[in-house]
């Protein structure tokens, strides 16, 4: 016979009792861990979202400029003004173009990082992707303002290559043009793609990393060349990552008001409209109604992605 406690030694003290309690009641630990963040999310985030939603059903008294706290769809009706529809269409088109361009630019980088980069090169990849995120957003945008300015490096490069005519022809085009790249929609687009690119690359890379190389070999083994392997195996399996990345680029572009203000034509984006209405104009209900637009668009987008089977491989 061994001495009592030699095989099942007890652990004294409050710490021991506590860890034993948690071991016996795992749900208690889960509850204690989840309560603070859930309260935070529930009250601060969902609460303010709800308040916002509520505001959008109020209206503004045009005469006094006071908010009329009566339930009405009048403000949403105002969203249908040609000027406001113009803002929404412009923003959504820009967000869609930025998303598609980011996906096209990001894919080869993510693919290389997931399939070929090893060891040190992988570290270089992460550093290269993350580094731009560490510097100030405003600094990057003002840097781009200089790069795209009339006297900037892009114009200079086009001039040296003898292709100034090409840039001028592009800038002479209606919607995308302007007097220089830094005050054209093309400039806004370029900077959006640059700023949001990491948010597309990282989820794409994560999803490509989970595609075993034997699946790609199996596809080749069954007769599929690289193009068809991409279409039938790699893309469907990477789709959740592409969708995740596009949610970032799409919603970030929908909501941004700084980039179009610094770089671009003076035509408004949703973010700028919200900023103007809740600030100088004091039209909080219309600002709130504008904010609901991206939320609805993202909801519809996710629903369509789900319908298209983007999450089947999850």
């Amino acid at each position, binding site marked *: 016979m061994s001495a009592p406690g030699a095989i099942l030694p007890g652990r004294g003290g409050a710490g021991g009792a506590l860890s034993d309690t948690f071991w016996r009641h795992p749900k208690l630990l889960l509850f204690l861990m989840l309560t603070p963040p859930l309260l935070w999310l529930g009250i601060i985030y969902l609460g303010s979202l709800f308040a916002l939603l509520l505001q959008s059903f109020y209206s503004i008294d045009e005469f006094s400029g006071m908010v009329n706290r009566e339930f009405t769809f009048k403000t949403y009706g105002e969203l249908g003004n040609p000027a406001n529809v113009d803002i929404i269409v412009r923003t959504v088109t820009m967000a869609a173009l930025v998303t598609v361009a980011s996906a096209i630019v990001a894919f080869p980088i993510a693919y290389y990082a997931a399939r070929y980069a090893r060891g040190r090169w992988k570290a270089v990849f992460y550093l290269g992707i993350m580094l731009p995120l560490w510097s100030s957003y405003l600094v990057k945008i003002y840097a781009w303002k200089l790069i795209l300015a009339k006297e900037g490096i892009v114009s200079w490069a086009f001039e040296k290559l003898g292709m100034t005519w090409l840039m001028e022809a592009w800038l002479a085009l209606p919607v995308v043009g302007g007097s220089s790249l830094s005050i054209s929609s093309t400039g806004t687009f370029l900077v959006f793609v640059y700023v949001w690119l990491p948010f597309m690359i990282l989820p794409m890379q994560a999803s490509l990393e989970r595609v*075993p190389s*034997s*699946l790609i*070999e*199996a*596809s*080749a*083994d*069954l*007769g*599929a*060349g690289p193009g*068809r392997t991409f279409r*039938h*195996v790699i893309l*469907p*399996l990477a789709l959740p990552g592409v969708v995740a990345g596009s949610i970032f680029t799409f919603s970030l572009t929908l909501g941004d008001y700084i980039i179009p203000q610094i770089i671009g034509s003076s035509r408004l984006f949703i973010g700028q409209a919200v900023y103007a209405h809740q600030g100088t104009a004091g039209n909080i209900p219309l600002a709130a109604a504008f904010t609901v637009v991206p939320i609805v668009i993202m909801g519809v987008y996710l629903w369509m992605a789900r319908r298209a089977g983007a999450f*089947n*491989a999850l």
Partner: protein
Amino acid sequence: MTHAVQFSKVSRHFGAVRAVDSVDLEIRPGEFFAMLGPSGSGKTTCLRLIAGFEQPTSGHIEIFGETAEGVPPYRRNVNTVFQDYALFPHLNVRDNVAYGLMIRGVNKAERAKRAEAALALVKMPGYGDRRPGQLSGGQRQRVALARALVNEPRVLLLDEPLGALDLKLREQMQEELKSLQRALGITFVFVTHDQGEALSMADRVAVFNEGRIIQIGAPEEIYRRPRTRFVADFVGSSNVLSPALTASLGGPPKWASLRPEDVRLDPAGLNEATVVATNYLGSVTRVTLDTFGGRLSALVASTAELPVPGTRLRFSFSTSDLHLIEDEA
């Protein structure tokens, strides 16, 4: 005669590692050929060279008389059953099996028909609508087999296909693979590190070590007449006798192999030994003996009265069963 697969002085080096080192190999059409060896011996690289996933560093490969180097895997009429099965998780079983047909542009109705026929061939009829994630390991294996066979390849490559299955399923699959191969007449090239599997299934076996083929021959030949100590050691649990021990037991002073089932516990035997241990293996028991300072194992029927470790006894074998190893490497 054209060979199904022919390697002439084929090497595949990865930096300083000679994964495959100047290998000559001929696989006959319609043959069940096994590549046997420990991990890292180059057998899987050889398989990948046939599939086209690897290109030789030097040497020449022919598949049914056609030059294979420089030809990508998607232009080879060769299909592979992967070790991890490599089923496409986003496709159901039918679309997995029909993948090769879809790539070749076979119409949908025909695809479904042939996929179902292939599934029936591997005893998985009616599973077309399932997802690979809903299948057991053995079922996935069958689907992987159907996916390769539906393309009617000239050569079917199998990379340790039974490695992940439990014993009973393995034995069943071994038999089924063998009868499938006989019925279809396709050349099967099978990679395994399990000598029992190689010996029981293959028409011929190539034993690999360190990137080279050490011996090629029929299973019986490999088992009975190993050419080197490595083969004797690796293939089966044969006794490998040092020159001194061989001489003590009445043979010439050379390395030799002696199969455990040829050693008889025999009170009238010429040699004396101490019993070290007994291992019950079911129908037979392995008795480990210590004789002239060397170890020797004997297989005896478990029905017989078993010796107790520590006791001394006599044993015998016929000198014709003592196989001298030519190559001492």
